[in-house]
């Protein structure tokens, strides 16, 4: 296995075509999911006529603002953890210096990159947050009742790129190249998984909030937050 991962051709595959594949699947898959959902929503008749831009924005704003909803205020710890987690999980891979070099190398694009120390810290934060989320799932009775195996698998799926990224950067546990290959593979796996798993909530969030926000604001004249 180690030898297999060490094979330069594997590296080339993971570094090249698989990246393409992952991004294409991610974007196309996500667009497809959104498109089919919107199409299905049309069939339901009672969705579109009630959509309100104003209340969609109000709803999204409230729920993207820390402690913007009563629900978040009632769950302060979870709110803090999830906000930090979500910020880190999105910001880290995009602004990581190492990734920037790759963007630059492949497509000659680059933008602001964060100091290595900071991204390092953010990576650890993601891992720690995930650990808390995992613990919460395991310990808190009502959540454990809701949880199925797939929810744990998703946690692992999200954790892997960050753990392996951290390990490879610090050349721990395994040989750098091997760990890097695993890191890239797990990152690609996660990207591919997003459209087809609950991770799609990163996009679906905006659709459900548009519907519920409009219903509550424009029709029911009350708050959905």
């Amino acid at each position, binding site marked *: 296995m180690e030898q297999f991962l060490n094979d330069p051709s594997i590296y080339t595959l993971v570094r090249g075509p698989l990246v393409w594949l992952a991004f294409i699947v991610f974007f196309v898959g996500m667009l497809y999911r959104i498109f089919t959902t919107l199409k299905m929503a049309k069939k*339901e008749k009672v969705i579109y006529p009630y959509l309100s831009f104003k209340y969609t924005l109000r709803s999204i704003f409230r729920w993207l603002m820390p402690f913007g*909803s009563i629900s978040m205020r009632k769950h302060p710890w979870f709110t803090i953890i999830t906000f930090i987690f979500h910020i880190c999980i999105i910001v880290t891979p995009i602004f990581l210096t190492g990734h920037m070099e790759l963007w630059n190398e492949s497509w000659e694009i680059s933008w602001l990159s964060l100091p290595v120390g900071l991204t390092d810290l953010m990576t650890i934060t993601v891992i720690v947050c995930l650990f808390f989320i995992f613990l919460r799932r395991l310990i*808190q009775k009502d959540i454990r*009742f809701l949880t199925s195996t797939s929810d744990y698998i998703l946690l692992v799926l999200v954790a892997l790129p960050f753990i392996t990224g951290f390990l490879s950067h610090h050349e721990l546990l395994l040989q750098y190249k091997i760990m890097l290959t695993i890191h890239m593979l797990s990152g690609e796996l996660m990207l591919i998984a997003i459209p087809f798993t*609950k991770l799609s909530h990163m996009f*679906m969030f905006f659709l*459900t909030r548009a519907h519920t926000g409009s219903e*509550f604001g424009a029709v029911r004249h009350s708050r959905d*937050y």
Partner: protein
Amino acid sequence: MEFKRKPVTDIGIDEALNRVDEEKIKKAIQWTLKKEASARLKIFVETCMRCGMCTNSCHHYLGHEGDPTYAPAAKVKQTIWDILDKKGNVSKEDIKKYARIAFSECNLCRRCVQYCPFGIDIAYLISLVRRLCCLIGVVPQYIYDQVLSHMQTTNMLWFRQDEWLDTIQWLEDELRAEIKNGKIPVGKKDAEVLYLAHGLEAKYMTGLLTNMAKIMNVAKVDWTVPDTDGWDYTVKALYAQDLETMGKVIRTHYETALRLNIKRIVIGECGHAFRTAVYEGVRYLGWKEPPIPYIHGVQFFYELIKERKIKITKKIEEPVTIQDPCNIIRYRGMGQMLRYIVKELCENIIEMSPKDDHNYCCSAGGGMIDSGPPWKTARIEGGKVKAEQISDTGAKIVIAPCHTCHKGIEDLNVYYKLNVHVKFLVDIIAEVMEIPEEMKP
């Protein structure tokens, strides 16, 4: 953690299940989840991250603290997710469990929707469970009896047409003891307002109708009540998710108004009827909004008081608190109007916490009280947090502008020994408003 409940017998569920075959169950599931439900079902099921943010929002969970099977998402897990996991191949025992959860452990109050980061409409999902139960024929007996009545008579209590007319006539006679030439116009064409009554106001709670008539006469409203079926604004079919009957009842209400050429419909203090008439019912029929204005008692009284059509002589001095009915507050934002009215009527108001559109359900709504005696314990247990809320205010009077809240809180009052009186606005207004000298007999 297992789904553990004390056994409850309801022939509308148990006996009905004996009479159906597995094929009918399968067909009902296919129809509901494949034909009727679509994007919302899919996106809600696929987007739920099982984060548990909704858990504490639910009064049923709070009434059974520590039992995760009562949490909102858990109720979806034990019904919709279960059906999907089993690909629709569910047993009669499963249906029994689904029915119990959907009819006796969720009031469709939508408080959990306010707590969900994704705004997942759990009440909608539970409604789907009720819908498929209804298609199978599994509905609590007490609800189903009322729905069967609605199907033919439009009213909820098998009232004959002469019984309604006769009731109005003797109520008018009684009204004359208080108001000179007091009148309850019946089937008057071209009136401004068509007043629809709660079915019970025509039989057991006639005082409410008399009081409304008093207010209408004093405020000199040009009003009438129907002389045909369609006088009862209730739509218990909503609870059963018998959409066919619901549509027919709501259509009858609007067509009665259009036939008499009145300007708008006014109803008394009721939650579900208002909600059905402005949301579920009109949407089912294809109207985006009510075809003519449909006014709730709270909106109507607000108007009468604000425009000084009625004058308040003496305010209530005892401490009062306000019950915010989900179907007009969370569903229509009447919280401020309600408070305006109560401030005009009462000196001493102590608010519950939380209040307004974040208020807890009375635990009787969404058909739970209509499920009758078998399910009373379920709603009393679910009403624990409401009882605590009321008791914390120290108020002596609870103003509940909704028939269901009213009766639900009365039951909580007895069980939890709250020592309060539950009152409708109409009763308080009739009590404290001024009757001009010339109108006295």
